């Protein structure tokens, strides 16, 4: 996957795009603009997935995040803010606290990553379960990725797959009950 120079160009462009938008989301004044920048972040992340060859994941990410979650955020903003009129400025408080927390996390994370990557044994991942064998050859072809994920989901990871679906159903019903209960209409 890590191709030649073009790959790196795309990588840096996309990551810069994503980080820039993430910063805008965090420091934006108008809530609605933050939501749009969040959408751009999602698209950036989807692009990064593509670079990694995770095609199905990019599609799923775009469908669920940019299509669904962003719309959800927009509806939440509209329902909770005054529809039109004074746009309440988002006063950020304790900016210093935030920055310090972010930086110390960054430090910790980078040190861990640095040490972890160095100590990895070279043959990591050699012992592959039998089913994964089929998955192995298929995962490189673009079409293969989609097929591979599909097959893996229904064979190796069937139990979590079912759990996820149950969780989703519960989440949807829960959300409706909360919104309706409070709403009363």
């Amino acid at each position, binding site marked *: 996957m890590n191709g030649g120079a073009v790959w790196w160009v795309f990588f840096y462009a996309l990551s810069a795009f994503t980080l820039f938008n993430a910063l805008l989301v965090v420091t934006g004044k108008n809530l609605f603009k933050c939501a749009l920048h969040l959408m751009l972040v999602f698209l950036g992340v989807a692009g990064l997935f593509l670079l990694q060859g995770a095609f199905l994941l990019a599609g799923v990410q775009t469908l669920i995040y940019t299509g669904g979650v962003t719309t959800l955020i927009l509806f939440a903003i509209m329902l909770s803010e005054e529809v039109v009129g004074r746009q309440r400025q988002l006063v950020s*408080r304790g900016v210093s*606290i935030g920055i310090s927390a972010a930086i110390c996390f960054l430090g910790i994370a980078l040190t861990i990553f640095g040490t972890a990557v160095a100590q990895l044994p070279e043959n990591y991942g050699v012992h592959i379960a039998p089913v994964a064998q089929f998955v192995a050859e298929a995962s490189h072809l673009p079409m293969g990725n989609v097929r591979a994920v599909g097959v893996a989901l229904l064979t190796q990871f069937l139990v979590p797959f079912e759990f996820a679906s149950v969780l989703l159903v519960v989440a949807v019903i829960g959300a409706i009950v909360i919104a309706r209960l409070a709403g*009363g*209409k």
Partner: protein
Amino acid sequence: MKRNSDSGIGSNYPWHKQRPVIEEPRPGEALRADRLIVNMGPQHPSTHGVLRMILTVDGEWVVAAEPDIGYLHRGFEKLAEMRDYDGTIFLSDRWDYLASMSNNIAMSLAIERLLDIQVPERAQWIRMLVAELQRIASHLVFIAAYGLDMGAMTPFFYCFRERERIVGFFEALCGARLTYHYVRVGGVAADLPDGFLEELEKFIPMLQSGFDEIDELLIYNPILIERTSGIGIIPPHLAVSYGLSGPMIRASGIPYDVRKCHPYLFYDAVDWDVITHEACDSWARVWVRSQEMRQSLRIVKQVVERLKEMPAGEVRVKLGRSIRPQKGDCYVAIESPRGELGIYIVSDGSGKPYRVKIRGPSFVNLSIAPRVLPGVKIADLVAILGSFDLVMGEVDR
């Protein structure tokens, strides 16, 4: 409990000072209903003419509706007192500008009743012919406009194709297309041009097929039925108590038709039946009007036969220069396309009417709106108001 325990940097930050003022939601008040006063009109596409509805809206539901009328008030009743009797006919075209023939007939019948003069038979038949054609044309406009409200573009053109033909006949008759003042005191302005009846006879089957087309296109359209049935219910007792008339009361199941209950001209000599529908909702009102068009066509057929046999005679009583009825008053009502159009004239013997009171059917029909509209969804508002078939010229006079 220390408020910002997590930061712990010290408590002199400004937000400590503002005590969070949260008004406890009072137990009874579940939700802060934010009622919205909304203005619909006076320039709104679906209010036919200048009707302004002041709606208090709670979310999607209309809580109260109060029509604010008077934007088209031209003071006809005062004007009529300054004109001589023949002049008031020319005023009458502009009350219900979609059915000016029936206005003329109402006014001339009232004056003739005051003068106790006998109008020649041929003129009475022509008046009936013209009244029924006018009713068909007016109902066609209603169906076209109602289709547009509901979003269907095509029925508009079908209805107006038929209406153009009828208006063409009126043009042949009296030269005007909308405000005719063809019916005068004592008769009719001019006799039928020759070839008029044959032309009309050829036109009737075309009109019949046109009605079926419109029915199939709009009236029995499933989406329209689903959208208009079951809303704007006016129970019979309410309809009577509010004095509704015309298709509005007949759609609530009451067979009240001025042509049957207080017969005038030769309506009792022609066989037709009164259309009623028990559903009392908007769709019933639309259906009643579309069926009434067919009855009017039946009347037109019979009148054309009668006029054919009748020799072409004089169509107007010779009246003196100025009409001077003796003292007295009278009330005459006719069935205009929108309902009972009543004229109450008081004369004091002079050349000018002392007082003319016009009972506009749309004015009385609209009076039920504040009773019917609350509790309706905004989307239905257009469907219900449209089915009233209001003409503001008649409401505001």
